[in-house]
């Protein structure tokens, strides 16, 4: 399926980030084409979320920089939308008003359309507290999409959802991406989720990119042998690093 060219081009150039003396990310080099869907995987604490926050402008790089359509990112950029692990809806605003925060000029019709895209337009006038976790995350997706973002950053947005809701949400995100054509960077620790959604899967280990794999499966993706092959390969790569640090005796069979 051909994506419309609404996405941003992204270039990460020799990026380094330190917190105090600790180097969290080092020498990160990454180019992402407009409309591409990238998944960043890695173990907890590898620096993948920090990379996402640097791209969003929530954090500042120690060295190097991130270029969005050739412009260096300095601070928050309204073409970039960030979806957090928690939905972060304002409990004191009706669902529609939460989505309006993301819409241009707080336009109600745009907000309503975005809610329709995630299938929650009939709940527009309710309080967020009545929604389930998955529904809340859908509202936060609508809020992010209401502004015609060119770059969508997802920081483990499905991590707190149950397995069935997660699959539903993956399909929703995939469909909206195909329809709107924005660039997506998804941070996840779920390799199968990465393979199900992404054009390219990037592995971050100890602050460095150690693998960059194109997923050449057709869409919509089915969990067939080829799918398992990619999943297996990436997963082995993720685990490999870990096992090689174990004492040698463990392997001596």
């Amino acid at each position, binding site marked *: 399926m051909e994506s419309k060219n609404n996405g941003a081009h992204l270039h990460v150039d020799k990026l380094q980030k330190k917190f105090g003396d600790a180097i969290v990310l080092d020498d990160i080099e990454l180019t992402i084409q407009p409309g591409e869907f990238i998944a960043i995987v890695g173990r907890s604490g590898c620096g993948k979320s920090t990379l996402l926050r640097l791209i969003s402008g929530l954090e500042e790089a120690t060295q190097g920089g991130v270029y969005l359509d050739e412009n260096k990112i300095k601070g928050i950029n309204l073409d970039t939308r960030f979806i*957090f692990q*928690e939905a*972060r809806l304002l409990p*004191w*605003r009706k669902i529609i008003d939460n989505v309006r*925060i*993301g819409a241009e000029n707080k336009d109600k019709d745009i907000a309503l359309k975005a809610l329709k895209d995630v299938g929650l337009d009939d709940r527009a006038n309710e*309080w967020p*507290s009545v929604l389930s976790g998955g529904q809340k995350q859908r509202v936060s997706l609508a*809020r992010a999409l209401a502004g015609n973002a060119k770059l969508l950053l997802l920081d483990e947005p499905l991590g707190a959802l149950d397995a069935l809701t997660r699959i539903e949400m993956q399909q929703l995100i995939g469909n909206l991406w195909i329809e709107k054509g924005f660039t997506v960077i998804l941070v996840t620790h779920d390799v199968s989720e990465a393979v199900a959604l992404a054009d390219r899967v990037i592995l971050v280990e100890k602050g460095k990119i150690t693998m960059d794999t194109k997923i050449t499966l057709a869409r919509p993706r089915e969990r067939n042998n080829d799918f398992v092959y990619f999943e297996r390969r990436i997963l082995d790569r993720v685990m490999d690093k870990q096992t090689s640090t174990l004492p040698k005796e463990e392997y001596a069979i």
Partner: protein
Amino acid sequence: MINVNFKERSYWIGKIVPWIIPILILLAWIVFTGDGDISSKIFPKPSKVFDSFVQLAKSGELLDNIVISTERALSGFIVGGGIGFILGFINGLSRKAENLLDSTIQMIRNIPHLALIPLVILWFGIGQEAKLLLIALGVFFPIYLNTFHGIRSIEPQLIEMGKVYGLKGLPLFKEVILPGSLPSILVGIRQSLGIMWLTLIVAETVAADSGIGYMAMNARELMLMDIIVLSIIVYALLGKVSDIIAKILEHRLLRWHPNFKKS
């Protein structure tokens, strides 16, 4: 059907139950003062209190005093509450301001504001300013503390979310900070309303030439027990009314809050 009836019944029971104890007290009052068990010099009969209520209401004296007292209470509340609110916000939002101001405020907070009565009388006499100052001082602290606490307890994640969506300055304040701290601010308002009436009563009793407290003290000199009791009842009612207003305010402003969702 049974379920509906049951719901309706429990609704009415809920409405009636709070009145049981006040009605029992009133009955006890009628019974014990009626046949001279308690001398009318110690406690007047309800009927006498009612008579003096009618009399004072007719002459307009009662209403005048209520208006004067309420005016004092509210103006002190607005001044003290307003300052507390603003300082609470400034200190809540800025660590530098907190560092500069908070320890001074906490020091003053530990002085019972009623201890300042002699000083205030010497400065302002028994005029309006004295009462306004005392009430403002009493009301200031609960509102300051709760506003401050309300801002500090807003989830930083929500503020970060606001920033991602380009909210800053006034819009960020309006969308996130003010509504987020409102539950706490309203707790402060309810607390300070109690302090407001308490301070007013003390101030009017100690030094005043008008108002309900003055009415009561005047009656004491003339041994008019019924008017003293009437003043106490008026205070109780005023306190109850302001509490009801605060409750309504809470229910209206915090509709989104799961705790206030029903009704």
